[in-house]
């Protein structure tokens, strides 16, 4: 049984169909990338999984349990953590307190939560900035903070919405190594939306390509990037000159 099964998800906004019957799975312990051009419906899929809104039709199952229609906090409690494409730090709180908020989901005391938070900040190399207000962080650090906060809720599945965007190549490689290690050591499953192909190729075991709200290709990264349908949607149709 797959950890996450999204089946025939449909979502329209005021008649505009953002996602039209997308299906994909995430196996336990695997890393899946959701790619596609802007407006393909990737973030809409994420939001349906994370409970921001319910799909018009279709189902989301996590560990065999139907999740569509649940609230975001219930979905987080069930074990799905997420980051936001447009980062949402608790700007007035310190970096450490941001992560403590997440850690309190599974910790009964603030002291215990702080210990968990500091451990995660260390791994993400944010420990020196722990006492600074989150509003003072640079964008790459804010992205790290998003990840730290989501990880603090101890998810079984982590949804990453473009966490590599805006990172320098070396920073991107660091993040990739970090997620690989998490995946290898803790068996954390990851579903990521990503435009940075460097990260997708290095991280994902499987890639799902969305275009106009529909899945047009899926498979191993190396296969998918050679798929004519994928090339077409990114680069336009090949024409003889």
């Amino acid at each position, binding site marked *: 049984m797959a950890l996450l099964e999204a089946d025939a998800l449909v979502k329209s906004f005021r008649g505009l169909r953002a996602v039209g019957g997308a299906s994909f799975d995430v196996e336990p312990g695997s890393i899946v990338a959701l790619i596609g051009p802007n407006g393909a419906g990737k973030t809409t899929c994420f939001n349906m999984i994370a409970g921001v809104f319910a799909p018009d039709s279709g189902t989301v199952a996590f560990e065999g349990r139907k999740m569509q229609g649940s609230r975001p*906090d219930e979905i987080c409690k069930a074990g799905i953590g997420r980051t*936001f494409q447009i980062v*949402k*730090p*608790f700007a007035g*709180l310190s970096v450490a307190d941001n992560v403590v*908020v997440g850690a*309190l989901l599974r910790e009964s005391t603030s002291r215990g939560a702080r210990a968990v938070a500091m451990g995660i900040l260390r791994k993400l190399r944010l420990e020196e900035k722990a006492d600074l207000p989150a509003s003072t962080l640079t964008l790459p650090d804010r992205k790290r903070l998003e990840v730290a906060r*989501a990880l*603090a809720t101890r998810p079984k599945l982590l949804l990453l919405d473009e966490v590599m965007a805006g990172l320098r190549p070396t920073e991107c490689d660091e993040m990739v190594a970090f997620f690989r290690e998490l995946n290898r050591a803790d068996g954390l499953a990851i579903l990521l939306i990503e435009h940075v192909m460097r990260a997708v190729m290095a991280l994902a075991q499987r890639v799902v390509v969305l275009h106009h709200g529909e899945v047009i290709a899926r498979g191993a990264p190396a296969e998918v990037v050679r798929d004519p349908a994928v090339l077409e949607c990114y680069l336009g149709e090949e024409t003889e000159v």
Partner: protein
Amino acid sequence: MSARARALLVALAAVLLALPQFAGSYLLSVATLALYFAYTGQAWNVMMGFAGQLSLGHSLYVGLGAYAAAAVFTKFGIGPWAGAWVAIALCVAAGAAIGVLAFRFGISGVYFALLTIAFAEFTRIGFDHIGWLGGPGGLFLKVGQRSSWDLANLRGTPAMFYYVMLALTAGAFALCAALLKSRAGYYWQAIREDEEAARALGINTFRWKMFAVIISAAMTALAGVFFAFYYNNLFPEQIFNIGQSIEIILGPIVGGVGTLFGPVLGAALLTGLADALNNLVAAMGWDIPGVKQVFYGIVLLLVIMFLPNGIWPPLARRLGLGR
């Protein structure tokens, strides 16, 4: 809390405890009023400062609390300490009703604030029509003798009322300090900063916002009980007035929204300075109605322009304290 902050707190407590020994009854009444606003400001701060829910109708809880305690006292002879529970129950019910209405139907921000005003206003008008409680003519408590302490019935000297208000303020401060360090404090602040992100971290935002409203309403209810037994007369026009709500929130805004010391500092400054100004105006033989309101307006304007986070945060940094 740092050692320095603790030392400051102890010094402040010592001065406040000794105040009735050297202050006359007039100064004591000003100090009692300052404490009253420190307390109500602290209660309001739980909702706005911690959880980010703007209430502009806290006079509702003062009024309901005051009328509840006064009514059971005058009509059934139930003392203020038992009456306080009636007041709390009533205010919690009112706060919960507003909370459910607002948070279930996604009313937030300015619209939430308007809802709180609406509740306070229609309660004011409603109480004008409750003949049993005196209607617009007011509800009066028998003024007891003022020379000895009768704590059980809250009848006594100005010093007694001062100490009761001081105990309430200290209790509210300790409660808020504890809440801020607890799960509730973290969750409230997360909701204040970004509700969607808070939800994504597993926080049932409805539940925690309700908790903030309930705590704030219950705290303010006690201020109402005090109000009733201190002033001995209640008029809907006065106690449910929006001016009362505004005066409650001025202290925390001037002192620092979301901080522990802000409401106390703000209330002390505003009450003290407004009173000094009143005396000055009277001494000069001038007659300027509304001078206090104008003064509040000017202070508010200056604080918002130059110290948008209130006086306390920069002062705390200057003193080398936390927040």
